[in-house]
């Protein structure tokens, strides 16, 4: 059997769902960050699949921008996590409620 567009979409759907599981179950802030990275990777698999089947190279350029955003997001998020840990000695996202209204 050959691999079609739907195989890529299915793989991306699986990885996206796994990322959502990570975001909703982890309480450790770095665990949540890992879930977000998985979701962004799922998005890239979708883009690459569409690039292979009919889309052309523009989809891959979009995927590069997604990677850039993911890298910037990881850097800023880790900076925030480190600062929270410095203040509270704990990075449980449920207990970081200082800004809650």
């Amino acid at each position, binding site marked *: *059997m*050959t*691999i*079609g*567009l*739907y195989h*890529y979409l*299915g*793989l991306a*759907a*699986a*990885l*996206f*769902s*796994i*990322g*959502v*599981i*990570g975001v*909703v*179950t982890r*309480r*450790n802030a*770095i*665990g949540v*960050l*890992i*879930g977000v*990275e*998985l979701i962004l*990777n799922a998005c*890239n698999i979708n883009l*690459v*699949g569409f*690039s*292979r*089947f*009919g889309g*052309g*190279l*523009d989809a*891959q*350029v979009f*995927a590069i*921008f997604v*990677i*850039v955003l993911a*890298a910037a*997001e*990881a*850097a*800023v998020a*880790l*900076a925030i*996590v*480190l600062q929270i*840990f410095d203040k509270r000695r*704990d990075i*449980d996202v*449920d207990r970081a409620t200082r800004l809650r209204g």
Partner: protein
Amino acid sequence: MSVAPLLFWVFSAMVVVGGLMAVLLPRIVHAVFSLLLCFTGVAAVYVLAGADFLAITQIVVYVGGVLVLIAFGILLTGRTSEATAKQEARSRKYGLAIGLVLFFGLMKAIGATSQFRVEENPVGDGTTEDIGKLLLGDYIIPFEFASILLLVALVGSAYLVRRPKA
């Protein structure tokens, strides 16, 4: 029969298993090593899809950059506390249920669409040259904005982690 479909399944299994371990393993350090498996599998899937430049970028940025950054974050913040681990274990089965429902919903939505073109594009001599031309041609404005974003993120994160002078 060519070997490419088989490889696709092998690498997909790598991605899914690595991803599942990354979100379900209780120890966050183990999760990072499973994430390595997952990201490498994604790069391999890119290679199979003919996206060679993107595969290299994936390895350089994710495996070489983001993963190391996350590993440093873990080293600097220590292990998950007892109470947090307990809370995570409690919410895990609900999270799995949410993920399963989401996955089957997405698969149903994907199966219900029929307007996608499914002819395969031929694989050329590599995509690097063409992506370079696109980045510095049609996409020059987003490209410049991306570089400004990276600069802002660099300065911003360096500012955020500073220790105020006592």
